[in-house]
């Protein structure tokens, strides 16, 4: 083997070490759970998150003053919804010229087409509907396209993900990119993937959607949280969901 060939081989080997295949890097929070917790998530009767999904299912077919409900268009059990499309959220909306998260899509749909009191982003009913609709796409592969008009929002979200916050002065990526799998007291740190959201958390004892989860994180950092549905959280959700591309949707997941 001549010298040039050897250098070439060496650089190829080092390249594969430095840039491993991305799919191997992305790990669902499920893989960091204990076997008991995994069994709990897999059992629809044992999974506490299913309560919120059921509440969402009931809201989905609750008729408004004129007898119309979400189910009137999308099927009583939501079977007319395209699960592949659900896995693509957040998407860019051409009419509004802005990204839409799944929850924003649901709220917009309800508030304009149904004769019901307007839903706010932070409302419990909005979380329940989101959990139900995303659960329909359980097992579908997360597939957020950030190559087109979502690109600037993705970059803005990544900046937030890499900014230090609060009195604790840590950025999201410092724990979730560098320290996944390590123990933070009784908890195991995960990569912070969003494929299981809305998810039930043992430490909070309730189901949280993506924006509620951001608020929990920022509060832990002793930082002033942003508002649910704010531009910052939407951008962060665009980034985080795209970061989870390739993982299977697990809604409602169970996490530490």
């Amino acid at each position, binding site marked *: 083997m001549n010298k040039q060939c050897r250098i070439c081989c060496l650089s190829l080997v080092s390249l594969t070490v430095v840039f491993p295949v991305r799919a191997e890097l992305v790990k669902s929070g499920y893989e960091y759970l204990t076997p008991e917790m995994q069994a709990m998530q897999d059992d629809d009767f044992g999974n506490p998150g299913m309560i919120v999904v059921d509440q969402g299912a009931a809201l989905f077919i609750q008729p408004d003053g004129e007898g119309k409900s979400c189910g009137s268009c999308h099927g009583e059990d939501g079977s007319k919804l395209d699960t592949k499309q659900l896995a693509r959220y957040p998407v860019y909306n051409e009419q509004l010229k802005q990204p839409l998260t799944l929850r924003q899509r649901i709220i917009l749909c309800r508030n304009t087409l149904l004769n019901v009191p307007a839903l706010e982003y932070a409302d419990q009913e909005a979380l329940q509907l989101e959990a139900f609709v995303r659960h329909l796409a359980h097992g579908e592969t997360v597939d957020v396209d950030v190559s087109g008009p979502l690109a600037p929002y993705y970059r803005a979200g990544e900046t937030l993900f890499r900014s230090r916050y609060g009195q604790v002065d840590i950025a999201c990526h410092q724990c979730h990119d560098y320290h996944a799998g390590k*123990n933070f007291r009784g908890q195991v740190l995960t990569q912070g993937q969003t494929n299981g959201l809305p998810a039930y958390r043992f430490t909070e004892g309730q189901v949280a959607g993506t924006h509620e989860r951001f608020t929990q994180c920022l509060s832990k950092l*002793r930082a002033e949280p942003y508002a649910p549905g704010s531009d910052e959280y939407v951008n962060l959700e665009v980034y985080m969901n795209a970061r989870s591309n390739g993982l299977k949707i697990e809604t409602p997941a169970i996490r530490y």
Partner: protein
Amino acid sequence: MIQTRLAWLVVLLLWALPLSESARAAESGPPSYFAWKAENFAIEEPLGGMVGDPVRGRAIAADQMRGNCLACHQLPFVEEKFHGNLGPPLAGIASRQQVGMIRLHVVDQSRFNPETVMPGFYRPAQQLNRVEKKLEGKTFLSAQDIEDVVAWLATLK
């Protein structure tokens, strides 16, 4: 007669109440920040010239709302379970490092590692981003707390 006395008592109480409240506010107001200087990866002078108490320091290290060192470090605390492992174990730290270096680790670990996940327990407040409103302008631990923790760490030989 009793009624007049009671009325006076009420007046007295109403007058004293806001006074005592403002007195308390003045006591717990924004604590003064003691500037520190790091040289050769160490802060030799105790913050504000304070004397640390290792017994208090040990309690702060275990307290989830204050030091919470256990969240990330294994410590020689047999009575506590689930020690974290984000940072290195700290048993015997004082035989590996001088007190001045230990102090800088607690005050601002980013001087050693810019990508550290250890909170800057006494990092200058103006360096921080979007701190919770009620904590604005305050450090994570007070200068006295820092000195207590440093005094306790110095006993881990």
